């Protein structure tokens, strides 16, 4: 009955949480909104219930624990949510302890949440399985809710994933766990000193120490874990065969799933042989791989680092390529719209005015002349719009003179005084020059429009890179710094201007750094890796 309540509570809470997860936006009123704000903390109810039941459920423990859980959920929902993973992990640990007491023979019957171990049941397996499920759920919640401890688990996992070198796979190293388990079963403290001679806490401490050592070995060195596992598999497998062949001359303890110690007949011998064969097979499979690994040259760390670098690079490039294509497409759409609504429309107007003028000439030449004047005016406007459009696509002065002069022209056109400090001994290739030009133009416009600066200083320079470059550029670093004396408070995360600049630069592995405390001054630094070509020579 109590377990049914735990089960129903769990299912109910998970259902509510799923409803909450699926919905965004403001929280609804009433009960549903209340449940949504409590969220994961609600799971504390079934956890507390289960814990109380496990502890015996006597002397009003269940109402007390449930009461505390409800109080936590109502008054400290965050704390309640954080307690849930620990509770689940604790219950899982408790399950393992229960299984152990049953196996030690301390109790004849064990009830663990929804399953039990006892005569007629499948031994402790259901209990261990349930504990395993709870452990997995607890671990998942630990990571999902990001409670203290999640960082350690993540770091361990990352370290584990990071150690994928040396040709030994995770699974191969993990074979150490069953090997150690079997070894402890055969050679564990219970067998050294006689069953019952050493037990309880002492045995648990020894088991725990060995298990910890095995885990540390697995995480520290996958290769050595696999080596020990291979040796263990071969020895233990051979030992299985020895038991099968020479029992009882060879002392027969518990060996895997067979238990000769408590059996007077040799009937389970074939299971020993089967288990021994399996272990031998695994050992024979693993041993050559481990030996090959140890005999092979040590992994070329530089090559590994390079591969990782390349992987990261490919990820960056994939992302920026999408951005660039996206930006380019948007730009083309804008140009198309500008042409369509601007110059094209004006040329249509020119044609219509001329057509009307042609018809009017014989009858009223003055009206016709007025129309021709109008056509001239329209064509002038069309040209002005085309000029503005071309400037936005690719400033002619940049095409004519390169980056340094384009920045000089930009400074001259600015409505506020701009001090220039340009030192470019060569030419920047056009795509990079264009990106830097438009970035500086945007920053300059911001200084004037948003920061209300009274003066601006633009520094433009190039540092040849010592010792060769990385994957990009290779020829040095182009650096533009724009300093203004305005209000400050610029933030690339706010507004589209600086974010657009950043997107433009990222395509060339460039960066944008903004230092703009409230009250100013604002310093914007643009850096793009690139090489300089020799200065353009005059054609005349």
């Amino acid at each position, binding site marked *: 009955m109590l377990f049914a309540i735990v089960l129903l509570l769990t299912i109910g809470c998970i259902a509510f949480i799923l409803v909450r997860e699926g919905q965004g936006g403001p929280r609804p009123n009433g009960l549903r909104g209340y449940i949504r704000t409590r969220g994961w903390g609600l799971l504390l109810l079934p956890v507390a219930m289960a814990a109380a039941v496990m502890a015996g459920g006597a002397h009003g423990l269940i109402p007390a624990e449930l009461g505390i859980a409800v109080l936590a959920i109502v008054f400290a929902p965050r704390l309640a949510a954080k307690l849930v993973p620990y509770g689940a992990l604790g219950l899982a640990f408790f399950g393992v302890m229960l299984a152990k007491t049953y196996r030690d023979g301390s109790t004849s019957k064990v009830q663990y949440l929804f399953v039990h171990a006892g005569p007629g049941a499948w031994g402790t397996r259901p209990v261990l399985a349930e504990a395993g499920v709870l452990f997995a759920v607890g671990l998942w919640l630990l990571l999902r809710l990001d409670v203290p401890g999640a960082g350690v688990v993540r770091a361990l996992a990352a370290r584990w994933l990071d150690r994928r070198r040396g040709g030994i796979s995770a699974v191969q190293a993990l074979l150490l766990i069953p090997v150690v388990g079997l070894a402890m079963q055969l050679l564990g403290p219970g067998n050294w000193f006689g069953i019952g001679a050493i037990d309880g806490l002492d045995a648990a401490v020894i088991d725990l120490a060995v298990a910890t050592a095995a885990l540390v070995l697995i995480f520290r060195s996958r290769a050595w874990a696999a080596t020990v596992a291979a040796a263990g598999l071969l020895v233990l497998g051979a030992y299985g065969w020895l038991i099968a062949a020479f029992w009882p001359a060879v002392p027969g303890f518990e060996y895997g799933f067979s238990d000769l110690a408590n059996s007077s007949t040799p009937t389970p011998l074939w299971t020993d042989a089967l288990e021994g064969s399996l272990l031998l097979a695994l050992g024979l499979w693993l041993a050559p791989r481990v030996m090959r690994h140890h005999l092979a040259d040590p992994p070329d760390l530089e090559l590994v680092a390079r591969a990782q670098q390349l992987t990261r690079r490919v990820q960056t490039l994939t992302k920026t390529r999408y951005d660039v294509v996206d930006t380019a497409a948007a730009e083309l759409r804008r140009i198309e719209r500008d042409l369509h609504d601007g110059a094209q429309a004006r040329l249509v107007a020119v044609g219509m005015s001329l057509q009307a003028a042609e018809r009017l000439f014989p009858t009223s030449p003055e009206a016709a002349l007025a129309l021709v004047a109008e056509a001239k005016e329209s064509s002038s406007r069309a040209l002005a719009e085309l000029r503005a459009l071309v400037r936005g696509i690719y400033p002619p002065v940049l*095409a004519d003179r390169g980056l340094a002069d384009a920045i000089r022209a930009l400074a001259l056109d600015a*409505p506020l*005084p701009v001090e220039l400090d340009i030192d470019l001994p060569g030419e920047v290739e056009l795509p990079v020059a264009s990106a830097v030009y438009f970035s500086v133009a945007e920053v300059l416009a911001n200084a004037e429009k948003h920061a209300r600066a009274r003066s601006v200083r633009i520094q433009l320079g190039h540092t040849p890179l010592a010792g060769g470059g990385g994957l990009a550029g290779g020829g040095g670093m182009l650096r533009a710094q724009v300093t203004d004396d305005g209000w400050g408070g610029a933030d690339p995360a706010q507004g589209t201007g600086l974010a657009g600049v950043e997107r433009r630069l990222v395509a060339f592995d460039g960066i944008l750094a903004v230092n703009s405390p409230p009250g100013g001054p604002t310093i914007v630094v643009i850096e793009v890796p690139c090489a300089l070509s020799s200065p353009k020579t005059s054609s*005349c």
Partner: protein
Amino acid sequence: MRIVIAEDLFLLREGLVRLLSAHGFEIAAAVASAPELLEALVEQRPDVGIVDVRLPPTHTDDGLRAALAARARIPGLPVLVLSQYVEQLYARELLADQAGGVGYLLKDRVFNDEAFTAAIRTVAAGGTVLDPEVVGKLMTRRSRDEPVARLTPREREVLALMAEGRSNVAIAQRLFISEKAVSKHAAGIFAKLDLAPSDDDNRRVLAVLAYLGS
């Protein structure tokens, strides 16, 4: 008046030739590239060279460079530079030798043939004609240099119109003031910019240059 035309687009070159011939100018040469232009300017020594900024061989600012090279050899050779766009940077480079006889206009100013031919004559006479778009940017800009900042708003207006190559008469008409008043403003401008008395045309060029450099 003899003119050399440099324009690489056939349609525009022929259009200019036709327009200027119709107004009684003599076309000494009509060329399509920067090296040809330099040769024509130096050999023909026209009264005015009308030059497109963007010319072969590199299709960047070859025309401008050729015009500057010709003026380096023949100081004060009048040059009217046409372009699809105007840059203060180029205007400053053209005026830098302080010799006058420089024009810098958008190509669409050709539509107004009276103003255009007037500009050609001003340049031929040693004056300075800057496109209203260049001058307009100067007007919106906060002055950073002392002398120009000292000008009154009215004087700045007069200076802007001077930069566009307008005569005192034209400026007077434009601003609805008397010609005498314009002369007074001009004198005020020259004084504030510390331009020593010399011939009026040269002082105008220097005043415009100071304005550009401010």
